[in-house]
Each structure stands twice: as C-alpha cells, then as structure tokens.
C-alpha cells in the first residue's frame, strides 16, 4: 500500500551544524509534499512545501529537495538551533486532480535532537 517513510528515527546534531532529514515515498502519482515540525504536546506546524514540478524550494533556514526519480524527499535545516529540536514529519498528497480530497499521508517521523 501507500506509505511515506523516513530513513532514520532519530538524528542528533551539534548546534550550528546543518541537519538533513530524509523521507522516501511510494506513490509516484503524488504531486504535493509537506514537511511538518511537531513539538511535544502540540499539533504539527507547517515548515515548507513543494510541488512535483519543482526539485528544490528554499525557506528561511530550510530547504526541501525533491527527487522524483527515486521518490525521495529531504529537509535541510541550516545552522541548527536548540529550538529546532522536535519530531519532523514528511507528508504527501497522493491524489491531485478530480476527486482529490487533499488528505495527507504522513511518515512515521524523525526526532531531531540538537546538542548545545
């Protein structure tokens, strides 16, 4: 079935280093992808999104890369800060077009730990 998976359950980085969180998706028809950040006890918070007609999109300190050939998505965080410590989820919207309800399929999440 459809699934979105993350390569590592936990990523530990030093404050100031760059972080890369990876995600593999299985549905080649997916046309829209989102990265969410979830802090303990809170709902997911939008970080950045990308559509399949792009392979790279940049935000503030974050970059999302999309490789449709291998169905791989990554989130890069520059100069990681302690406040970046959270669980990061990738999500895909697999059914763009007629009848698409916009529901998201989420991966299991990667815990990012930032060491001071």
């Amino acid at each position: 079935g459809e699934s979105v998976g993350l390569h590592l359950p936990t990523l530990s980085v030093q404050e100031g280093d760059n972080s890369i969180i990876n995600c593999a998706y299985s549905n080649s028809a997916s046309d829209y992808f989102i990265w969410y950040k979830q802090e303990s006890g809170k709902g997911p918070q939008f970080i950045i999104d990308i559509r399949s007609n792009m392979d790279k999109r940049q935000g503030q300190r974050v970059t999302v890369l999309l490789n449709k050939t291998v169905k791989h998505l990554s989130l890069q965080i520059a100069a990681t800060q302690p406040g970046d410590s959270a669980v990061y989820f990738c999500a895909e919207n697999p059914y763009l077009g007629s009848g698409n309800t916009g529901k998201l399929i989420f991966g299991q999440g990667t815990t990012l730990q930032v060491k001071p």
Partner: protein
Amino acid sequence: GAGVSQSPSNKVTEKGKDVELRCDPISGHTALYWYRQSLGQGLEFLIYFQGNSAPDKSGLPSDRFSAERTGGSVSTLTIQRTQQEDSAVYLCASSLKVTGGEQYFGPGTRLTVT
C-alpha cells in the same frame, strides 16, 4: 489571528463509553480534516469535509467512528463504545484550499480509554 482550536485538550473515559471531540477550524477555511496519532507514530487520516460535498470517510477505522460538520464550520468526531486501542491524540486540521494547500493543525485532544 485565531488558529484551529480543539476541545477538550484531554479526555479520559472508561471502555465502552461514548466520547465527542470538537474542532473549531480557522474562519473561512473550506476544508476540515481529522487525523489520529498514536504514541510515537505518524498521523493517520480519518475523515475529510469540504463545503456541502460528501465527506471522505475512507480513513475511519470502524463504524464506531463518525463525524459531522455543522454549518460548514465546527466539527465533532464521535467515538462510540470506546476501546483501549482508541487511545491516541486526535488532531484536527483546516485548509483554505482543498488540494495542495497547507493544512493548519490544532493542538489535538489526547484520548485515554481505561
């Protein structure tokens, strides 16, 4: 502005009881979603509402689960005859666009079935 709100924030109930969870979406958002998040897991889609269209109920795990959205705004998720496996955080999200649009999440309701 106000985000998505959910109530209660926590709910403890006995096995077999019915529970109702409430979601107030962002004003003007046409689409509303319910997801479930078990401990240490990703989010699992439950149900989707958009305007007067028939809801997408494809993610509801059993017929004990139902949801409604009154007046295109507030939504209620009802779980009848709760079971221990229903224990999870139930998250509501709303979006301005139906497809390919950012979904804004509420803080969730933590449901514990004893």
